[in-house]
């Protein structure tokens, strides 16, 4: 344990430049989106406090936006806003909106109506009432909303690395992909600390009495703008050609490291999630990506595969990685798994992927069609002789492979099958395997070697 902490410290000091940069980006991203969320949410909150009929509609809409999964929201925005800073800021802004609108609204309508009446009776105009009475009195509640929004934003901003917007997510998701615990912690610990510290600081402001609060409120907007500045500075990209690589690809010898050392590739590189990478290349946001040669979207989006003439990439074949103990527990399993070997070539896999990714056919149907065509399909024997647990990563090809194995096992043995699809990356699949949560999952020979 002690040794691990030292290596984490070692990793962090070794990567201190990156760490500082990512932390500043993270802060900047959080606050620039917060700034926009306040600029939009505060007036909206005031508006619905004035015209209460609108409140249900606007709060409902903000609530619905809040429930859209973050990665899906980021995906939706690529066609409109591209990748990088813009969609990330907009997505964060959307998540920050609800607490700010709602708290502004409840803060204002919660003010004792006699105070408002006395302000009117003294001859204050509507604007004077808003600025001198309503907003100052609603401020503790509004600040509570800003506090919630800030903490949400620190969390969601880790996902910004999926669409090449930087931040501490680069370490976190890179580490998950590369099975590097120190890297995960180097991103996760600062992110958690940011959330805790910001929450604490805002709680102090929120609890101040009116006397002190008045002074702080002049400083607060300035502070947000300064912190937002952290993000604007590093996000000024200048390269003509831009590559988007997955966090995993970035850290692998048979990836960005190899491209640099063997090919001497000097290209502006940004980190992006494979979920949105292809779309970004298609919409010309990226020029080079680290795609899977078998991915159906290559065909769908008309992308060209570059040839690896220096051979830095080992051959990739899909092969199940199985627990030793599972082979002993299910003696017939090995035979069944081998039924597929040699049947799937790159071009066949690409075609299968194309059918799910582009023609939007269900993975089950694609898998069954393939097995029927190759005369491997047998009806399920509805076996009760134990359950084999199959894992898969979160993309189409793995779903298809998992379905094929599932059908083969059900048709050829008396075992039952449960599939655990949608595991986040190599590390998660591998950890699940090691900890006896799954019996096997489809992996690629190159990756499998690296992990083991």
């Amino acid at each position, binding site marked *: 344990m002690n040794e691990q902490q030292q290596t984490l410290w070692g990793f962090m000091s070794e990567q201190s430049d990156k760490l500082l940069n990512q932390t500043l980006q993270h802060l900047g991203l959080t606050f620039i989106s917060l700034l926009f969320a306040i600029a939009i949410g505060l007036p909206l909150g005031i508006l619905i406090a004035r015209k209460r009929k609108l409140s249900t509609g606007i709060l409902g809409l903000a609530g619905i936006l809040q429930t859209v999964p973050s990665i899906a929201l980021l995906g939706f925005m690529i066609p409109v806003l591209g990748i990088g800073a813009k969609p990330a800021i907009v997505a964060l802004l959307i998540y920050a909106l609800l607490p700010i609108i709602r708290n502004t609204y409840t803060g204002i309508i919660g003010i*004792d109506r*006699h*105070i408002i*009446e*006395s*302000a*009117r*009776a*003294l*001859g*204050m*105009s509507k604007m*004077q009432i808003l600025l001198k*009475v309503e907003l*100052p*009195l609603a401020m503790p509640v509004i600040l509570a909303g800003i506090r919630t929004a800030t903490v949400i934003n620190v969390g969601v901003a880790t996902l910004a690395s999926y669409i090449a917007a930087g931040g501490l997510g680069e370490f976190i998701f890179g580490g998950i992909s590369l099975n590097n615990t120190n890297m995960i912690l180097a991103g996760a610990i600062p992110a958690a600390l940011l959330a805790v510290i910001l929450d604490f600081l805002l709680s102090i402001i929120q609890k101040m009495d*009116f*006397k002190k609060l*008045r002074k702080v409120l002049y400083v607060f907007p300035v502070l947000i703008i300064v912190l937002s500045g952290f993000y604007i500075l590093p996000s000024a990209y200048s390269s003509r050609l831009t590559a988007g690589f997955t966090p995993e690809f970035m850290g692998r010898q048979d990836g960005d490291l190899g491209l640099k050392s063997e090919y001497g590739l000097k290209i502006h590189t940004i980190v992006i999630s494979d979920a949105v990478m292809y779309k970004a290349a298609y919409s010309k946001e990226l020029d080079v990506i680290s795609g899977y040669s078998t991915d159906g979207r290559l065909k769908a989006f008309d992308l060209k595969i570059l040839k690896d003439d220096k051979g830095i990439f080992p051959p990739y074949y899909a092969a199940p990685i199985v627990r030793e103990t599972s082979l002993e527990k299910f003696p017939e399993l090995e035979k069944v798994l081998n039924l597929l070997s040699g049947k799937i070539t790159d071009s066949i896999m690409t075609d299968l992927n194309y059918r799910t990714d582009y023609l939007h056919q269900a993975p089950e149907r694609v898998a069954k069609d393939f097995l029927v065509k190759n005369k491997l399909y047998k009806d399920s024997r509805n076996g009760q002789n134990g359950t084999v647990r199959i894992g898969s990563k979160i993309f189409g090809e793995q779903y298809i492979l998992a379905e094929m194995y599932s059908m083969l096992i059900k048709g050829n043995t008396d075992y039952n099958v449960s599939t655990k699809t949608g595991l986040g990356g190599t590390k998660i699949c591998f950890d699940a395997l090691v900890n006896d949560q799954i019996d096997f999952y489809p992996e690629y020979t190159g990756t499998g070697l690296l992990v083991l």
Partner: protein
Amino acid sequence: MIELKSVSKSFGNTQAVDQISFKVNEKENLVLLGTSGCGKTTTLKMINRLIEPDAGEIIINGKDITNQNPEILRRGIGYVMQNIGLFPHYNIAENIAVVPKLLKWDKEKTHQRIAELIEKLHLPNNCLKMFPHELSGGQQQRVGLARALVTDPAVLLMDEPFGALDNVTRSSIQAEFKALEELKRKTIVMVTHDVQEAFELADRICLMDKGEIIQIGTPKDLLYNPTNDFARKFLDGQRLALEFKVITLQDLWGFLPADQISNGEKPLDASSNIWNAMENIRSTSNGRIRVSNTNKEQKSVDFQQLTQAFNQYKYNHHHE
């Protein structure tokens, strides 16, 4: 000074105020009296346009208020309300200075005026930097009064100004209120449901019910010449106490014995009411007061003589 001409207001299907008209003379204190929901507060709030009337005219100093900017209008009318409505985020000095600030008074003038009011309203000097929640209810109400008086407006509207106070505080503030010179030169419209309070403070009372005026007149008129059953029943049960408040020593002058004046009696003006005289007698050691009227005549009275005089006055009154 203030004139309402067939003013009406309804909220939905409820007719809150139905075609009422009255005049308030300069430096007069008119009390709108009635049970809750009778339309008295709505009437008051229409005078500074917190509520806009549906029909009718309201004229202050010869000008129709609908032609004036409501905010400018309100800055010229003092307003005191039951819930006080002090701004919790302003300290006391800032609370009192709201209207001077809106009128862009210079700081020195505001400062002097606030110091003057603090003195007159018996507020502690160190309260200026305090926040409203640090003051007692009675002190808060004085600050509310100071806020309304700070620019010395000619017209003052008061909505149940003593309603939120406990009995002891209320009667002491009422007494100060009556004695305050500044208020004697103001035209005041005050709303209350408390009959005692109305009789204590009003020059004239406007008794309202269901959005209409039942009777408008001096406290004595209401007590002795009620126009209908409602007006009569409204005062039932408190008649004796009200008579003590309405009838002054001057009214009883003829029935008071012309005894010897001795030194050391507490002096009292004949314009005081019976209630007041009784309280003064109780607080003296020898049980006597010396009453002087406007003709500089003096009489010495004790409790028994006072009640006798009152009974004779009443007997005569009924048989006039």
